């Protein structure tokens, strides 16, 4: 009899099988799905071929709402003339565009277009009316950035919507400022630059590229930072702490009190 067969009736056999299958599923899923975000590499300089490719992608995936020449349709989608490649790259690489439902606020979701297609559409829109370009790799690099200044800029201009570490926050009428946990440095730069959806814009003359790098450095550093105090409880402040105090600590003390004062059951004697 093989080793496994001999142990098929072991008390832990069932648990072992379940654990094994779970691990298998988890690893398989991780392998099969991709991370799905646009790369941080700089796009190749636009050329006519890329713009033509972008035009084709645009007509297939975007023109139904944005119009055949990106002129926009009232009540449906805004004009894209002049929004620039950065805006397009942001919206498409975060999966917000193509939009699943009409509306001013779109949720991040797995992107529909791959990086090559994204850059092509961005180049096409850029060719239509100009606008802020996709930032270069050097522009979003956080090497040598001043995280302290980034923190100061972030809490003064961003934290009111996105929360002090970028965990997200509420806006009016059902809108919300999303958490920044999944944003790439390029996407953060582009969002600041173009002001997508309800977010205001911070152009490069107001918050300079150096300032933007500092902000990106703060956001990326703090979100990857470990929590020395234990589980973070969401990093949204005292509300979760209060819930833990009542539903965790106080409940535990009540259980301890019940144990200490419990009457002896007859069976125990």
């Amino acid at each position, binding site marked *: 009899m093989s080793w496994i067969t001999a142990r098929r009736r072991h008390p832990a056999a069932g648990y072992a099988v379940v654990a094994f299958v779970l691990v298998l599923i988890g690893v398989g899923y991780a392998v099969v799905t991709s991370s799905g975000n646009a790369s941080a590499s700089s796009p190749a300089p636009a050329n006519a071929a890329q713009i033509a490719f972008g035009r084709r992608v645009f007509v297939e995936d975007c023109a139904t709402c944005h119009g055949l020449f990106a002129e926009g349709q009232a009540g449906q989608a805004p004009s894209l003339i002049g929004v620039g490649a950065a805006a397009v790259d942001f919206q498409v690489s975060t999966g917000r565009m193509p939009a699943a439902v009409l509306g001013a606020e779109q949720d991040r979701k797995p992107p529909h277009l791959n990086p090559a297609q994204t850059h092509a559409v961005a180049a096409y829109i850029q060719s239509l009316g100009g606008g802020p370009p996709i930032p270069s790799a050097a522009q979003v690099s956080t090497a040598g950035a001043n995280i302290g200044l980034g923190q100061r*800029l972030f809490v003064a201009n961003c934290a009111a*919507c996105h929360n002090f570490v970028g965990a997200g*926050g509420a806006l009016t009428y059902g809108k919300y400022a999303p958490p920044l946990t999944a944003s790439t440095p390029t996407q953060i730069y582009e969002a600041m630059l173009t*002001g997508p959806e309800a977010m205001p814009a*911070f152009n490069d003359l107001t918050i300079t590229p150096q*300032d933007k790098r500092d902000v990106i450095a703060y956001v990326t550093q703090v979100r990857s930072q470990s929590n*020395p105090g234990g589980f973070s409880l969401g990093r949204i402040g005292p509300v979760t702490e209060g819930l833990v105090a009542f539903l965790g600590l106080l409940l535990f003390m009540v259980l*301890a009190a019940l*144990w200490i004062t419990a009457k002896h059951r007859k069976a125990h004697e």
Partner: protein
Amino acid sequence: MSDTNSPGMPGAGDSGEDSWPEYLTSGEAHGATPSGGDPEGRRPRHRVIGTPPPAAARTLLSEEEAEGPPAARELPAEPSDPASAKRAERIVAACFLLAMVAGFGFLVAYAIVGVGTISGALHSNLWLGGCLGVMLLLLASGATIWVRRLMPEVELTEQRHLMRSDDKDREAFKETFEEGADASQFVKRPLVRRTLLAATVPLAVAPLFLLRDLGPLPGTSLDHTAWRKGLRLLVYGTGRPITAAEFNSPGSIISVGPEGYLDNDDEMAKAAVTLIKFRPGQLQFTTANHAVPNKVVQNWTVNDIVAYSKICTHVGCPAALYEQTTHHILCPCHQSTFDATQGARVIFGPATRPLPQLPIGVDSQGYLIALGDFQEPVGPSFWERS
């Protein structure tokens, strides 16, 4: 034992007691009868102790005992189930031993796990706290099992006595007090009594006077900020001045402060300003040179750039949240919402006043400057604000 009475309607021909203890409305001390020791030791033994003699003097921590030492032992010496107790003893000892190990773990962890970095703090916290927590939990569990399984069960009864002192004692107190009052002459001589009270009045008020220098009087300090004509608007954090030409993307905002005051928290708490850029036609203008409800003063704007005080008029949080699509300024503290195209008028929430608008213009080099201070006090309302 069969009851000779018919098991009829409730209350008829009862067996044992006359009535259930009338324990709440009268002063009868109707203590429960001891149920006696159950031979198998299953029920806790029940003893009534210390019925107080009727008029005994009461000590502060009361409870008089019967004269002489109590004859019978009141607490059993051994638990009722020795076998279970033996097992429990081993469990308790194991708890305490493991607690000791955890305690030593704490000491060792303190010695060898260093701090000085984020990850160092994490590991130190984990080891120190983990060992401490485990040690305390084991101590607690061991002590609980000790009480529950090693100590014999017992139930004692102690008599209360009425909180109210009996009348004799009250009389005696009254007499003593009145005698003393008479002897002190306090009641009989109103002149000294009243002059004493008069003398203590300034003494009682003196501490309040001593607190006067806690702070300056508000004066007019709440009515003004640091903004003056000609002061440049600097970006908060970087300290850069901005030109109207640079701040030209519609839907932009930025937090700014007056030149020279960015590092002064006291002034920035009043002078912080939000600068917003709009598209032409979005702002609802008035041509007046003073604030008009629901309107933006056009002479105080530059190229559809408008400046509002950042300090919320509710209780003073920086109202830093701006929605480009609805042009609402939302204060995240209590959700006061202001419409930036209509003079920052309040459209929801507890704030009652719009955010004051700062008059801005440009200097000779194109940098945005203030044209003067706010024309009304910024921030939360106060009594003296008209």
